[in-house]
């Protein structure tokens, strides 16, 4: 373990989403603790800057300090598939991605439906990253019997979920929602109607039609969202503490329904993934433009030799630029409170196969911040929106505190060079599996270092240390 850090970070673009402050500031650490944050133009200006989106202007520093990020949805595959990822490699990858807190989904082998597995899922070297286990909502994630939620919460579970599959039986779903309410935690639902999506390889639409891939209809998500909301509406009458969170929503239609339900005052939240805000199904045909670069009246592009990259096989599937726009709009207008990575590492054996036979999932915890910053650079998302969706938003769902860049806090922050770029590769990624369609692509925003619990958890190799070390 490294020493507690004593250093000065002068002239950084600093974001404090808890206090709602942003601007140029000097940050000083003594023995791992932030002793001062001095805003160059004063706090009032910093408050106004945050409210205006926290975007640096020309001439402002391009190296930013953000609170260490919080991921509400990742898979570290422990126990059961440690060859794909485990706590040691996953937290190393997380620290590289700028994360200080990661909530882990329970679809391990066996499922984390019991205290022993729940604790095994977070055991091991964790590079100062805080791990929050999510317990299986039902026994064996089989959807037939609700887990012992009270015992699991006592053992540290911050939520329950059957992620990877929906709780298809609506009576069991209702019972799980009630059990979570009684335990004071949210139920996180993977919204998919399997009767509509079975066998689906790509989103229904022109790309799937052209490429002959089995369609996964948008109705497969919408139907599940509508039905979950209908149950929630009933449940809150008797259990007002119930909280429902819909994870990795991907369609404009489903997000519109969620927004409507939130307008009714239902205790309903959702998140979107980095790949659904930035990629489209056109990537499967080898068209690797960012979603915001694709025009509405786009022509279909003839598949290139890069087509059918199975790293793009993901559930829910990638969709059109319109759905990706809706995902970004949901972040802008608050319908979605977080960007969750759905970091889903898979071994080569599971991914380097025919597209339709490949395991679903993208390893995304190391690239999420850069993808979001690419959207920022294109003028799609403000820095304030991105930072809130990666810190205070997920913290709200998980009922934890965001350790912000603020005097008195034990330092937990990430230093990012917003102007620099990097390319994901086997050499630059630290996770055990590198199943990402972004391999080789130039990404903006380089994490220089991640400080967690007052200590260096990640430092970019060969990078000049962008702070003055105080002896």
């Amino acid at each position: 373990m490294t020493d507690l850090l004593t250093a000065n970070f002068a002239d950084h673009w600093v974001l404090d989403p808890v206090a709602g402050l942003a601007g140029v500031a000097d940050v000083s650490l003594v023995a791992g603790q932030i002793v001062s944050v001095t805003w160059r133009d004063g706090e009032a200006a910093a408050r106004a800057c945050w409210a205006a989106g926290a975007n640096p202007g020309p001439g402002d520093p391009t190296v930013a300090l953000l609170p260490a990020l919080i991921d509400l949805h990742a898979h570290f595959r422990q126990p059961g598939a440690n060859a794909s990822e485990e706590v040691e490699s996953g937290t190393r990858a997380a620290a590289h991605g700028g994360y200080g807190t990661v909530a882990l989904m329970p679809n391990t082998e066996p499922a984390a439906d019991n205290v022993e597995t729940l604790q095994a899922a977070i055991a091991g070297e964790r590079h100062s990253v805080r791990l929050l286990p999510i317990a299986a909502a039902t026994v064996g994630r089989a959807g037939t019997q609700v887990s012992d939620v009270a015992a699991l919460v006592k053992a540290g579970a911050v939520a329950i979920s059957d992620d990877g599959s929906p709780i298809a039986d609506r009576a069991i779903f209702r019972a799980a929602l009630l059990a979570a309410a009684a335990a004071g935690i949210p139920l996180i639902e993977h919204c998919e109607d399997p009767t509509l999506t079975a066998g689906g390889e790509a989103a229904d639409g022109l790309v799937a039609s052209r490429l002959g891939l089995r369609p996964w209809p948008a109705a497969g998500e919408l139907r599940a969202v509508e039905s979950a909301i209908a149950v929630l509406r009933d449940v809150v009458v008797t259990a007002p503490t119930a909280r429902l969170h819909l994870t990795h929503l991907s369609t404009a239609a489903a997000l519109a329904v969620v927004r409507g339900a939130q307008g009714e005052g239902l205790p309903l939240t959702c998140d979107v993934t980095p790949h659904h805000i930035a990629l489209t199904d056109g990537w499967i045909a080898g068209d690797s433009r960012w979603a915001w670069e694709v025009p509405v009246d786009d022509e279909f592009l003839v598949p290139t030799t890069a087509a059918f990259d199975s790293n793009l096989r993901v559930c829910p599937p990638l969709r059109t630029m319109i759905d990706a726009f809706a995902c970004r709009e949901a972040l802008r207008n608050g319908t979605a409170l977080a960007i969750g990575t759905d970091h889903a590492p898979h071994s080569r054996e599971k991914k380097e196969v025919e597209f339709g036979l490949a395991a679903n999932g993208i390893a995304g915890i190391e690239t999420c911040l850069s993808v979001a910053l690419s959207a920022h650079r294109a003028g799609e998302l403000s820095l304030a929106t991105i930072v809130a969706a990666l810190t205070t938003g997920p913290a709200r769902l998980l009922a934890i505190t965001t350790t912000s860049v603020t005097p008195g806090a034990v330092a937990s922050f990430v230093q990012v060079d917003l102007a620099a770029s990097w390319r994901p590769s086997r050499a630059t990624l630290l996770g055990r599996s590198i199943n990402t369609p972004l391999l080789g692509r130039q990404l903006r925003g380089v994490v220089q270092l991640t400080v967690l619990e007052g200590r260096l958890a990640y430092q970019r190799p060969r990078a000049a240390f962008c702070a003055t070390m105080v002896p």
Partner: protein
Amino acid sequence: MVTQAVSVGERSRRHLLDVAGLDWRSLQKLLASAGEMQQLLDSPAGGSDALRGVGVTTLFYEPSTRTRISFEAAAAALGARVTTFSVATSSVGKGESLIDTVRTLGALRSQVIVLRHERAGAPWLAARHFGGSIVNAGDGWHAHPTQALLDLSVLSRHLGDQNGSLAGRRIAIVGDLLHSRVVRSNLHTLTTAGATVVLTGPASLTTGFAELAASFRNTPGSVRLVGSIDEALSDADAVMALRIQRERLTAGELNSLEAYRAAWGLTESRLAALAPRALVLHPGPMNEGVEIDPDVADGPRSLVLEQVRAGIPMRMAVLQQVVAEARA
């Protein structure tokens, strides 16, 4: 804004993965080459030794008769070393992956793999892991490039102008579009050749094809999806019936074969009434009495056997081209 992507045809000619992206000049070149191959087949020598020493392996993960034999006959007529890889008796049954298999074939000195696979995109995966040439002999619902090329050669011979163009010609394609790699590839070749393509079939088996048809708007030809066979056949110069793929149908997609024949089958009476001049094609194998009646399939307007015959010279042209590109 339209960003011009580099097509497979342009970027990687050592493979034939798809006909999407082949322009009219490339198609004409293949048609001309197939014509020369036919002369070679008709000559006393019956072939050439242009591919002598070249290892060509047919790797078929799905059952096939005419496509595999046609490729093997084509490779043999050019003097290649032909190997049939039998998936049923190979290590594939022991879980050997597609990547391992093509690498093994490469080590065994196959320069060309003719790949048939039940999953869309499998030839793209193989091409990324194989040093030689991959020829797509059908991938799932996606593409069947050499079928589309041989269909084009037959249609061009009967209906084309002096350049082989199908401009002004109306080609109807009827049946199970959803599961058909033949129709997906034919849409590219026929529209590039200038034809007006009219698609029809039961709604459950044409899902997505309205949008797909519209996406061909910037081609020399055009594509339309219509709701009735009468509308599709009306004034057609040629009609292609697609096989009802019983092995790919899922619940609810088709109720009964009898009802299908009544609504969508190519019968002589239907053709006589709506498209009296129309030629008839079928990619085979046929379900006679379902999508096509026996008297139509064997009748004077049928080009079905001509399609089968056209397969050998077209596949010779394809094999010769990919090998030439790999050597270049």
